[in-house]
């Protein structure tokens, strides 16, 4: 059984928390005491039945204001698969949390309110999904019960979304009409959307491919151990996780940035040595010779070298209330390396109304998406984000406040 990580995004009042509550309820992902607590709170507010949104709105303020403020992670399983949901708020000022939830997602569910159609928030959510290259997007056109289950409404919103997807270069997406409140097309098909022949939301979730990392070996070194591996005094262990590809004993690898070549002698784990280690596996590598490798270095195969970047083009989502300053230096964390970085130029800011880049922009503010040129004090051993999510991504950290101020994706290897 594998795990699908997906994110849900919608504007305030699109019924996103209700959808998740419905999904958990109908897929039997909720337990009796959770049901009892929600029934009690629903009744105290003078409503009947279950207010499904109460399952996910976990913070006091969220329940008081009836909005989702921060990402909540939920776990459930069906006989076919395990799921991790990153339930991300739609409220404009919390879009940074949507970016957070999306960064590890295999699939994104974007909610649209059938009574209101595409909103600025929908455009923003689609832009984030495109920017983070989420492999699959599901557009859940919710509240179909409030538009009389009208197929024409569904198709009109679908056509509007297709136009957005095209301007953003968004990959694969599918459209599902539903009523999260009553459950139609979430887990059960219901009786009222007979004209829709596609899969239910759960069917899509159960069959969507779980994201597969890139095939090139990338092993960022986290720590170096000076233990005597295999009794050989001079041999160090390199602790890290295989971020993509795989590594096998006997293979020749190169340690970057210095380009030192060595052979893999042993793949050490507490459970014994491995012959190969695949993507996602945390191991300790022992090489056949003494080389100078430190935290931040990256191992690759000799014929599949990463880029070494001092200057590059990147897409940024700005996550902090204090706007981007091209005059300041930031910490840039990439893989297991942290370096000083400056934003040399802001090339454009994405205008969410037109979905066109605005080259006249002078800064990026909270929740803005844009394209920049970055210079770093030491080379990044990296790949383009389009080729490798793990080695093509970075964050910017404010030196003074230590806030994580931006999420970055390397889009262009530039020299000069």
């Amino acid at each position, binding site marked *: *059984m*594998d*795990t699908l990580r997906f994110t849900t995004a919608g504007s305030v009042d699109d019924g996103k928390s209700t959808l998740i509550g419905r999904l958990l309820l109908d897929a039997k992902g909720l*337990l*009796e*005491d959770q049901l009892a*607590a929600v029934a009690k*709170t629903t009744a105290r507010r003078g409503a009947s039945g279950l207010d499904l949104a109460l399952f996910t709105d*976990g*913070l*006091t*303020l969220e*329940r008081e204001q009836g909005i989702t*403020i921060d*990402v*909540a*992670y*939920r*776990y459930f399983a069906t006989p076919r698969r*395990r799921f*991790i949901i990153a339930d991300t708020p739609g409220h404009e000022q919390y879009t*940074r*949390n949507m970016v*957070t939830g999306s*960064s590890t997602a295999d699939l994104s569910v974007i909610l649209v309110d059938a009574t209101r159609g595409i909103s600025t928030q929908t455009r923003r959510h689609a832009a984030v999904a495109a920017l983070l290259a989420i492999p699959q997007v599901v557009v859940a056109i919710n509240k179909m019960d409030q538009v009389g289950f009208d197929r024409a409404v569904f198709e009109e919103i679908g056509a509007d979304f297709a136009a957005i997807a095209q301007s953003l270069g968004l990959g694969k997406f599918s459209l599902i009409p539903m009523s999260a409140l009553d459950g139609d097309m979430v887990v059960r098909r219901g009786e009222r959307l007979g004209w829709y022949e596609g899969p239910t939301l759960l069917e899509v979730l159960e069959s969507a491919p*779980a994201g597969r990392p890139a095939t090139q070996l990338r092993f960022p070194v*986290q*720590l170096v*151990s000076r*233990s005597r*591996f295999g009794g050989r005094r001079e041999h160090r262990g390199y*602790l890290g*996780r295989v971020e993509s590809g*795989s590594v096998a004993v006997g293979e020749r690898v190169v340690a970057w940035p210095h380009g030192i070549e060595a052979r893999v002698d042993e793949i050490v*784990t*507490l*459970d*014994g*040595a*491995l*012959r*190969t280690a*695949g*993507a*996602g*596996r*945390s191991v300790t590598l022992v090489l056949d010779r003494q080389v100078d490798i430190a*935290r931040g270095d990256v191992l690759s195969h000799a014929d599949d070298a990463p880029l070494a970047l001092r200057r590059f083009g990147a897409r940024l989502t700005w*996550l902090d209330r204090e706007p981007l300053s091209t005059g300041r230096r930031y*910490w840039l*964390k*990439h893989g*297991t390396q942290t370096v000083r970085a400056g934003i040399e130029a802001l090339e454009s800011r994405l205008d969410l109304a037109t979905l066109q880049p605005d080259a006249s922009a002078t800064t990026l503010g909270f929740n803005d998406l844009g394209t920049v040129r970055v210079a770093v004090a030491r080379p990044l051993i990296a790949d383009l984000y389009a080729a490798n999510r*793990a080695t093509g*991504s970075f*964050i910017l*950290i404010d030196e003074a406040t*230590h806030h*994580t101020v931006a*999420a970055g994706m390397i889009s262009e290897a530039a020299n000069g």
Partner: protein
Amino acid sequence: MSAVLDEVGSDRGLLGPDPISGRISHLDFLESEAIHVMREVVAETRNPALLFSGGKDSIVMLRIAEKAFRPDRFPFPLLHVDTEHNFPEVIAFRDARAAELGERLLVRSVDESIRAGRVKLRRPDESRNPHQTVTLLDAVKEFEFDALFGGARRDEEKARAKERILSHRDEFGQWDPRNQRPELWSLYNARLAPGEHLRVFPLSNWTELDIWQYIEREALAVPRIYFAHEREVVVRNGLLAPVTSLTPARPRETALTRRVRFRTVGDITCTCPVASEADTLAKIIAETAVATITERGATRMDDQTSDASMELRKREGYF
């Protein structure tokens, strides 16, 4: 000599690798993620510690630390904040496990905080569970810890579901749920100002079922009270409350002997067992897979006072 295992052959649990996608199994993914987090925090902080109580989640945490750092010693000590209202067998287990691993265990007790006047109880028999926060934050100050590894999971409770893997605490140990650092990809921001610290939750993405399956796969010992046993209890607020010298039956309550096990072990005054016949790991896993009540709902009186009691305690600096 250690056996050489193929990647695919290294799975011993219920969840083997998916032969179609070739991805590593669910438990291996969770294990590797936890190891990765632990190594990142060790690399980026000055003086971390691992919270070890003898409970099942912290037992898994010790295994993750072994997987992350052996053959070396752990690059951090173990820390337990003891309410001195713990089950004696759990404390004995805690000491034995730390000794077996050859790692340093630091214990700071709520009793000391009470004697020092740092904690004032309203009633001598009230739960000491919330008061652990004072002792915990005092220990952070005493040892100048800048990161504490904890075994909390997001599936435990609604406020926990909102927490980051690296959770920032200000100089008063407070958690501000509305101002958390965004956590993207596997890029953790461990930067701190003087006096601040991090709470680090490598098991964030694990569920109660994952914990038991992992304990079975790794053949980890756990305190006996996790398994079904005969115990004197009273029925109180719909829960089974253990009858002990600290928590005698109250007037008009009748002590009954029931076959029970603990799903969670904590302060005796607020931790309740559940009726169970599960006396093996396999039976516990089967029972957990079909459980109809959440772990904390079934066992914790302190979480029943209000919908937000965990959030309130966490804001003050609780685990």
